[in-house]
């Protein structure tokens, strides 16, 4: 029998003082040991900072899981070109909702991380590419950057180190594809956000064809804690290959949706246990481990360790740790149709497999959902998804194929039910947040 309550597994670091009144201010951040890591880092040689972050084992939190320190190490030094750090704050992957609350409540953790990262890679100009559709976060970033300049954490000769850094906050204009790092760079250069052919990789030719590191918000915001508390502390959480803490975002038909910060490798069962499970009276049907682009899981996967290796071994990807949970009232065909419409809408049009493939996937999915599909359509669906997956210019195409493949794998019978029954057997009203409450209760 058990032992420790599941919530003791949590380890809030970035979220540790989000409930502080005025948590977003420089004062609050400093009261919580903010900018102490910067002092430490500026006393280290830049290469030593890179080595330290590399040794910590920090991996990218934006989806791909690439080792952060290694990305920094790829920047050629002594090349005489300007170097840039670009923070990817274009959080748009369906289900993903960690960077936006992080920046709203604790923007200085990102700014401190930026200064440390730029010191390490010898960059004098950094950019935060924030998706434009989140104005409250933009306000707080503007203010945090202003505070950081005024306090001498940005600008000329930072804290007497002789190191100069400019930081520009840049608001995007509504395009999911700009979360792809090379599309983001094109967008930041004032172009249509379309992915670039690689190589050359951004580390060699990135922004303005200069060496550039593109990192996710959470990756960079994790750096100050690693420097301040030590890589051993960081490595004491998670596993050998997936060390450290991270933000898990629980959403959907769960009793208590929200942000849960803890060590990598926690399971959905543990998160649901502490969060009170699914909403009362319902059971888990399917879920995404890291946004809609990661193949969906079912209740068979509740004990999969949510780290890079664990989720990969179970046939999906850790992605952004966006745990969208759907209960038995949800039609999987409807869910996948909507995601497919999203990918078709957001396909940038640059490459044929994705542009054409996502269009045809939508036509087939809509027909099947509406009860107008045929059994051959399921093979056609699979075939088209197969022609998009791995054959597109960037990962958006793979993302579009993922919900289709995985839903066909686990719920083929439900597709067939739509075809044989000439319609959807589900009542969408039962899935709503207010389905189990009376309307008057909602109004109250």
């Amino acid at each position, binding site marked *: 029998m058990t032992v420790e309550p599941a*919530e003791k597994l*949590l380890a*809030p670091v970035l979220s540790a003082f989000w409930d*502080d*009144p*005025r948590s977003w201010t420089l004062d609050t951040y400093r009261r919580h040991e903010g900018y102490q890591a910067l002092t430490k880092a500026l006393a280290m040689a830049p290469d030593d900072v890179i080595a330290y972050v590399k040794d910590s084992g920090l991996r990218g939190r934006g989806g791909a899981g690439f080792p952060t320190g290694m990305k920094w190490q790829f920047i050629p030094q002594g090349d005489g070109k*300007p170097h840039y750090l670009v923070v990817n704050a274009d*959080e748009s992957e*369906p*289900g*993903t*909702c960690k*960077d936006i*609350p992080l920046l*709203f409540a604790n923007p200085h953790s990102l700014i401190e991380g930026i200064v440390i990262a730029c010191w390490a890679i010898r960059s004098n100009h950094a950019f935060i590419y924030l998706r*434009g*559709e*989140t*104005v*409250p976060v*933009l*306000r707080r970033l*503007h203010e945090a950057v202003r505070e950081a300049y005024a306090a001498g954490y940005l600008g000329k000769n930072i804290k007497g180190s002789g190191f100069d850094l400019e930081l*520009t906050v*840049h*608001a*995007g*204009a509504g395009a*999911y594809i700009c979360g792809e790092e090379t599309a983001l760079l094109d967008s930041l250069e*004032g*172009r*249509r956000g379309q992915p670039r052919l690689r190589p050359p990789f951004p580390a060699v030719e990135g922004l*303005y064809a200069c060496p550039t590191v593109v990192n996710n918000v959470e990756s960079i915001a994790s750096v100050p804690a690693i420097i301040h508390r030590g890589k051993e502390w960081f490595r004491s959480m998670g596993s050998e290959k997936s060390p450290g803490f991270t933000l898990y975002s*629980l*959403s*959907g038909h769960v009793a*208590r*949706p929200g*942000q*849960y910060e803890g060590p990598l490798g926690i399971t959905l069962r543990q998160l649901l*246990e502490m*969060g*009170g*499970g699914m909403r009362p*009276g*319902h059971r888990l049907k399917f879920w995404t481990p890291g946004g809609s682009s990661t193949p969906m899981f079912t209740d068979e996967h509740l004990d999969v360790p949510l780290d890079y290796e664990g989720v990969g071994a179970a046939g999906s990807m850790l992605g952004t740790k*966006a745990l*969208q949970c759907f209960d*038995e009232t949800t039609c999987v065909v*409807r*869910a996948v149709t*909507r995601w497919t419409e*999203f990918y078709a*809408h957001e396909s940038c049009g640059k490459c044929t497999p994705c542009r054409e493939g996502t269009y045809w996937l939508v036509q087939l999915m809509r027909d099947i959902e509406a009860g107008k599909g045929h059994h051959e359509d399921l093979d056609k669906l699979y075939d088209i998804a197969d022609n998009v997956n791995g054959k597109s210019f960037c990962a958006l195409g793979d993302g579009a194929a993922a919900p289709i493949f995985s839903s066909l794998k686990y719920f083929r019978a439900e597709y067939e039910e739509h075809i044989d029954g000439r319609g959807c057997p589900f009542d*969408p*009203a039962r899935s*709503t*947040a207010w389905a189990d409450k009376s*309307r008057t209760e*909602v109004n109250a």
Partner: protein
Amino acid sequence: MSGEVSLGIPEMPAPDYPADVRARLENDAREVIARYPGSRSALLPLLHLVQSEEGYVTRTVIRFCAEVLDLTTAEVTAVATFYTMYRRKPSGEYQVGVCTNTLCAVMGGDAIFEELQQHLGIGNDETTADGKVTLEHIECNAACDFAPVVMVNWEFFDNQTPESAKAMVDDLIAGREVRPTRGAPLCGYRQTARILAGFPDEREGAVEAGGGAGPASLAGLKLHRGEVAAARVVPPRAEPAGTDVTEEDGE
């Protein structure tokens, strides 16, 4: 606009801004351009900026951006038509966007969007006759733990219902003050566009407004601190106890 057959080919050249407006915008544009090592990077913020003038991307806008950045109007048009936040036609003072990506849609976003269309008597991407509200469905806005979500001028309205959303648009139309769940009191679309261009919101208290993290953002933190009891897992209805996947808390 009238009964003429439009071939979609605009008259050239596009009209310029009045001299005073142009001087003011050029001044702002210089400030935006100075933020970047390469001037073309200023194009996205400039398109936000000029939307704060006329509320949408007009031919005058395209011409202005091309001139200040030394681009062709075709290059500017290519960018302006790629991004969904740039409007192609006159729109309302308040842009009401209902998230209908999968999670919000399932949690009630579809119902909210449907009821708002009926309530306002307009369809997707249409504006009320009084010019107050433009309604549209939007993609995932990174607030899934607050689903279903509605955005108004890109401020968060969390945990919405059809009733709360209808009451909110009624308030917007009646000119009553509307406060988002997280964020500052609503300003008009043009003022929002200026913030997006990188000019900080100068309204008193705008940064502080709305307070700290929303309740869902604090879910894990409060549990960890023991400030809320870990919730009890309830077995599902119509399921024999013991088969529930979320119920094995005492295994």
